[in-house]
């Protein structure tokens, strides 16, 4: 899991997932 610093009460987490033969960095922004 990758995390970004919490800014303006918003947190972003990400994880790199393999989809078939490609790689998606899925990023989710959520409010604190």
């Amino acid at each position, binding site marked *: *899991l*990758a*995390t*970004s*610093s*919490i800014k303006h009460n918003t*947190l*972003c*987490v*990400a*994880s790199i*997932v*393999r*989809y*078939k033969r490609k790689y998606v960095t*899925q990023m*989710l922004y*959520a409010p*604190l």
Partner: protein
Amino acid sequence: STIAILPSSLPQIHRANMLAAGSAAATKISPLSIKKSKTKWHFGIRSRSYPLDVMGEIYIALKNLGAEWAKPSEEDLWTIKVRWKYDMGQPTNEKIPDLMKMVIQLFQIEANNYLVDFKFDGWESSYGDASPSSNEDEMSTFSAYPFLHLTTKLIMELAVNS
């Protein structure tokens, strides 16, 4: 080819034209300069607290969020095997695995600098069906969003508690 870029549409020229036309508001309006700040990414979350305190904080946060965990083995106090009931609010008659598993592990980066790593560890069913243990390699379409969502809740709980 007569494909071109319309000169009067370029921001600098448009601005000059607007100021020349004597628009009152034009002097006050500045271009949007969103600093496309490169998001700074970290692996997991870092902590400078005492290792056992970090583990204690994590257990408290997990408890507050209603998660459960396997009793840690003596040899490895720094890994927590978590199971989290993932109820989606709406009843679904189809039996889908509703227990998300996660592994939380504390790593030491250097003297009093630690990293808490979160790893997705598959799904289980609370009604006992042995969910198809498709191993990591075969599994190629899984949605990371429930995992990402639960880690945001856990990180927020830790941030709020600390």
